[in-house]
């Protein structure tokens, strides 16, 4: 390549930069490239740590694409996948609307704003596993949620939330909404604060109602922020594990089994590592394709 003549400083900078980026690149190869190749290899065999062979000898039980075919007809895999998507479809819009509502309340100055703001952010800083345990306690049949419901309805409510398949899933969603609405609130508020005030003032002078100002000035200005917030939560809920697993363990039965819980259970209970590697690889590849496509779309905008 015919590069333009460089000044000595540029060459020095490039050399230093290469060295400084090196550790991160080594770690990436170590944790992304190498494991992916290993995963691909194991997924095409019928290997399990139970067999006593090292993973290198897994080729002895080579079975090509048999695992991939099995996954396609694995109803537990599909139901875990749909369940994960259902949680996303309920929780992301709920968190978005609640977060947006709160952000709107917090745009102007008012007494106590800083204190209230700090308190509202607490849920997202609680360790997710601990949050899972909090909601485990709250949703016991003799627990405080039923106590509140009893007080509100005037009758004694003693629902065993976590033993009922439908209610357990709802409880898991409530816990996630509780923990992550603050993140939506935080991101959307950051976006709303960035909306130039003179534009809003001008609109007010022209007689625009609050709703008109909101839909014509605020919403278009924070469109990117909204997209980022929705993408982050969708990606994160797809990975949901810690809080959910502590709360229900995926149960009762498989009622709250999401994709991560399913992978975890097959890994540790059945020890069918080749099979799990296949599922994990399918998910990784689909997610990579989706994100690469999504990033392309965002670049073009």
């Amino acid at each position, binding site marked *: 390549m015919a590069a333009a003549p460089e000044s000595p400083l540029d060459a020095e900078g490039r050399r230093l930069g290469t060295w400084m*980026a090196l550790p991160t690149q080594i770690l990436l190869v170590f944790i992304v490239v190498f494991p992916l190749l290993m995963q691909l290899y*194991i997924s095409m065999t019928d290997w399990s740590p139970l067999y006593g062979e090292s993973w290198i000898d897994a080729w002895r039980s080579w079975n090509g694409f048999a695992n991939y075919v099995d996954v396609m007809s694995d109803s537990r895999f599909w139901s875990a996948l749909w369940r994960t998507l259902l949680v996303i479809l309920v929780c992301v819009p709920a968190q978005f609307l609640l977060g947006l509502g709160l952000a709107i309340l917090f745009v102007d100055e008012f007494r106590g704003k800083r204190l209230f703001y700090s308190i509202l952010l607490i849920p997202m*800083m609680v*360790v997710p596993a601990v949050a899972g345990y909090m909601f485990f*306690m709250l949703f016991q049949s003799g627990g405080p949620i039923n106590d509140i419901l009893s007080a509100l309805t005037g009758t004694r409510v003693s629902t065993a939330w976590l033993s009922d398949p439908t209610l357990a899933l709802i409880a898991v969603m409530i816990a996630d909404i509780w923990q992550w609405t603050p993140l939506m609130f935080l991101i959307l508020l*950051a976006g709303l604060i960035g909306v130039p005030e003179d534009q809003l003032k001008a609109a007010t002078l022209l007689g625009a109602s609050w709703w008109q100002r909101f839909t014509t000035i605020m919403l278009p200005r924070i469109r990117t922020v909204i997209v980022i917030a929705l993408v982050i939560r969708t990606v994160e809920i797809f990975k949901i594990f810690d809080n959910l697993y502590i709360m229900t363990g995926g149960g009762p039965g498989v009622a709250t089994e999401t994709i991560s819980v399913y*992978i975890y259970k097959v890994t540790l209970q059945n020890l069918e590592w080749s099979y799990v590697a296949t599922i994990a690889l399918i998910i990784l590849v689909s997610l990579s394709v989706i994100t690469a496509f999504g990033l392309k779309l965002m670049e073009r905008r």
Partner: protein
Amino acid sequence: MTARLWPEIGRYVLIFAALAITLVPTLWMVSMAFKPISEWTASGEALTWWPKEPTLDNFRFIFGTSSSELLVALEKTAWRPILASLLSATFGTIIAMLCGTAAAYAVSRFRVGGNLPLSLIQLRIFPPMAVLIPVMIMWTFLDLTDTWWGLALIYGIVTLPFSFWLMKTFFDEMPREIEEAALVEGCSRLRVFLKITFPMMLAPFASSALFVFILNWSDYLIALLLTTKDWVTIPVYMASLSSSMTGQLYGAKAALGLIAALPPVILGIAIQRYLVRGLTFGALKQ
């Protein structure tokens, strides 16, 4: 004036409702942590929002100095899991911050590294569950399972995207004139970074480090898979707390949960202004 008053009242009503919903779960755990065994699973009339007889027994129990007859000594006290969490989260943060900061500076100033920024975002998007089989095999092979340094290494890698993107945003924002002046004076590039750029970045660096620490401290899944006995972290240990006599150790778990929840909440409130950047990879500058 009355036209302005009602919206204000409405705002406070809604905010107080949100505050109540925010605080109830947390307060329930705080209350549970100070309740004696007899109140752990009380229901109906006996269920109270505050402990009737507040006690420190739950904390004494998890640290192995319980005087209660119902709570016999545990196999292991909470000291070791707390140490495991502290060591792995701290050293994981050091790994992520050292590698991430260096790479961020390299990419921000010298445009090296190719598609490093994007690969790091992808690393964050992947569910950790989906790469853990090879990681478990590798960790077993390298003898890193059930050690705090093995956990620290994987935590460092998992949080690298955050340290990289946070520091890159800060480096991008820093004016270059100061660095250029030093270069004209005859400083080497490395000296400029060590003596001028980095000292100026200390505050954002510290906030990023706290942020990464919170993320490492919060992990449950990785520790659950990569530790078994000696170096289980607080959340893993908490989940295992139960006894054949009383079943779920509600109060003890709540006490430990409280200990686990405090550092991130305090640190998180201290670094609020960097939170948005951290969580959005600086895609959104506050």
